[in-house]
């Protein structure tokens, strides 16, 4: 499989990012041209077609998850990139960073049961109008793994209503909500649907031997 003409994808790297290699291998398996983007540097937004913020524990998860990463030079460029309506994908800690940077609404709080959750989840696709959902159908179930301590999505009721009305709720936990996220939210998009993020790890579910290949539906 390939992403067509060699897509240039930037992968952000903060202190404590740890899913960067997995994400790069995933994208390279699709013949993408990948570049790591160091957090201390800004980048040329015209050079890239897509940005991915992989998971990890950026800046030690100190202060709040994603809080310090959101204030770094690389995120200034990501914000500029976002304004061009180009696709951005945040995974796990990447989701937290996008929220802290104000690129996505809401925040991710400590899991309701306090424990770090590392398990498989069933997700429901609620909307496929975004660049990472084109291969999926509304109502489809995806099996992906989660691994997070802070995945409890929170937003005020007005924001939640807006998310629902604008079809910004991308993925929800099916049957079993592992972290207490409001409205069972596992993944959302911005209003324009170009900035997308999810708590589960698609890069950890690409082949049968991994336990599921549903991550491959995202790209």
């Amino acid at each position, binding site marked *: 499989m390939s992403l067509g003409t060699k897509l240039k994808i930037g992968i952000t790297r903060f202190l404590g990012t740890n899913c960067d290699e997995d994400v790069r291998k995933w994208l390279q398996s699709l013949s993408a041209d990948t570049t790591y983007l160091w957090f201390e540097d800004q980048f040329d937004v015209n050079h890239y077609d897509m940005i991915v913020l992989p998971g990890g524990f950026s800046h030690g998860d100190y202060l709040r998850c994603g809080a310090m990463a959101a204030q770094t030079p690389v995120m200034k460029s990501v914000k500029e990139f976002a304004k061009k309506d180009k696709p951005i994908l945040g995974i796990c800690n990447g989701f937290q960073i996008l929220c*802290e940077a104000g690129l996505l609404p809401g925040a991710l709080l400590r899991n309701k049961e*306090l424990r770090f959750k590392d398990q498989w989840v069933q997700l429901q696709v609620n909307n496929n109008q975004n660049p990472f959902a084109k291969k999926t159908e509304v109502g489809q179930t995806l099996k992906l793994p989660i691994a997070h301590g802070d995945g*409890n999505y929170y937003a005020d009721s007005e924001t939640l209503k807006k998310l629902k009305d604008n079809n910004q709720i991308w993925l929800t936990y099916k049957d079993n909500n592992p972290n207490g996220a409001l409205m069972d939210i596992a993944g959302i998009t911005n209003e324009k649907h170009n900035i997308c993020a999810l708590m589960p790890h698609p890069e950890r579910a690409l082949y049968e031997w991994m336990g599921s290949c549903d991550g491959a539906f995202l790209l």
Partner: protein
Amino acid sequence: MKVGIKIMPRDVILDTQGRAVESSMKSNGFELLSCRVGKYVEVTVASENKAEAQSQVEKMLKEGGLYNPLIEKFEIQIN
């Protein structure tokens, strides 16, 4: 000058950490009505002027991401 910042989860936020501490206290026989857990940040700035120090720290809170207004509230404490 040393500036203290008390950061607490907003009242509408379900504070899981506070709940866990509360339940631990109760199971050990302590009597309490509620418990919420926040954090305390101490910043030292060069200025010795209270108003100036306060405004410097407020800027860190509001523009530097030191707190998240969606989920937290803060209180600046200068002695």
